């Protein structure tokens, strides 16, 4: 992706008043955030007993993800570095408590009290050094170390991340392991470039119990659900509309049946909903149609 917000400016500057407002007034972003937090909550695997838990939302922004937590009846504390985003959260009258803080400085919380933590598209910001005093490795260490301390034993933390490259994913994962977490990466729709989502699922406590990583959605070519509009870009980013489109080469005879089958197979692997192959596939319509 060419236009990652992380590369433009530090988070407290990038998410200024206008960007925060844009972020929260776009129904597409709201929709994606809600779906991501829904899935993160599912991966958190809290016991289903109807008791509200105390959760932490790291990089809560304007409280879009927190809303999902509230809908599921949980109490939450949100942390974000952008004052503008938190102002919008206040305007939206979110239920959780908000803190202005930098996750790279460590979480200012008492040990062993949080029942679970989620974070939607936030942790990759830690990989950037925005000030001369910032050292990504140390900031990740401070973050994961303090998170490990404040989580209750056996509690889980689920982070949806957009790592820029493999090195970044490695760096995040390694810092988490050094802090003592067990777990790994769950990838939803790994074959698709657009709807692929990565979740870091970490368990606090001894690695023996329940540290197995859940399976991602769509790993064996299972389709996305209907509402997963696959033609739409699922990343939360500002897409570049002026980018020149690739010209397609078409021979006089058209592309042929084999080409269609190949294309459909590709889409199926990506997890899209594709009509079945029949004897009508790729047939020309009659002239009188």
């Amino acid at each position: 992706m060419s236009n990652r917000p992380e590369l433009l400016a530090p988070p407290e500057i990038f998410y200024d008043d206008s960007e925060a407002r844009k972020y929260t007034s776009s129904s597409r972003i709201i929709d994606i955030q809600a779906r991501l937090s829904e899935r993160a909550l599912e991966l958190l695997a809290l016991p289903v007993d109807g008791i509200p838990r105390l959760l932490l939302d790291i990089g809560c922004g304007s409280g879009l993800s927190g809303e999902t937590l509230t809908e599921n009846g949980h109490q939450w504390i949100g942390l974000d570095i952008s004052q503008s985003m938190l102002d919008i959260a206040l305007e939206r009258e979110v239920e959780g408590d908000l803190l202005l803080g930098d996750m790279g400085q460590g979480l200012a919380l008492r040990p062993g009290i949080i029942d679970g933590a989620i974070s939607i598209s936030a942790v990759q910001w830690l990989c950037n050094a925005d000030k001369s005093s910032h050292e990504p490795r140390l900031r990740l260490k401070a973050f994961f170390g303090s998170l490990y301390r404040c989580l209750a034993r056996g509690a889980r933390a689920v982070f949806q991340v957009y790592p820029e490259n493999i090195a970044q994913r490695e760096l995040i994962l390694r810092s988490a392991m050094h802090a003592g977490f067990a777990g790994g990466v769950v990838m939803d729709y790994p074959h698709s470039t657009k709807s692929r989502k990565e979740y870091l699922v970490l368990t606090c406590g001894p690695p023996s119990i329940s540290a197995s990583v859940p399976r991602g959605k769509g790993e064996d070519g299972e389709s996305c659900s209907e509402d997963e509009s696959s033609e739409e870009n699922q990343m939360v980013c500002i897409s570049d509309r002026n980018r020149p489109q690739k010209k397609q080469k078409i021979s006089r005879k058209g592309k042929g049946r084999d080409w269609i089958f190949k294309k459909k197979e590709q889409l199926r692997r990506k997890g899209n909903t594709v009509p079945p192959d029949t004897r009508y596939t790729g047939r020309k319509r009659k002239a009188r149609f």
Partner: protein
Amino acid sequence: MRLFTHNMLSSNIKGVANGFPLRIEVDQVVEKQVDFNPDFLKNMFPKLEWKALVDAARTMGYTELPEEADSSMLESEDFLRKLHHALLELHLEEGALVCPETGRKFPVTKGIPNMLLHEDEV
């Protein structure tokens, strides 16, 4: 900021051994109605630092909480109501949190504590 968040927060300035509890300086307190949920309170109770909560509630002007509490008191509806009010309905809207060791102030504006540290405190 509600008192249950205050009960979780501690100062994480470099070199501070015991940053809990943060002292509260009150400029403005707001009360907001929240649905009563005894299950949540019972789940939260073992994690609370009771003394810190009582002190914090006093500074906010709520003196109904008993000095001592144990889990047997969770059966009483009256006690749960008081706990609910103190934990979830009292908001510190304007004021400051003060680190007990260094005296560093974390300002609270519009109900949001500013926990950002300066570079030399990390």
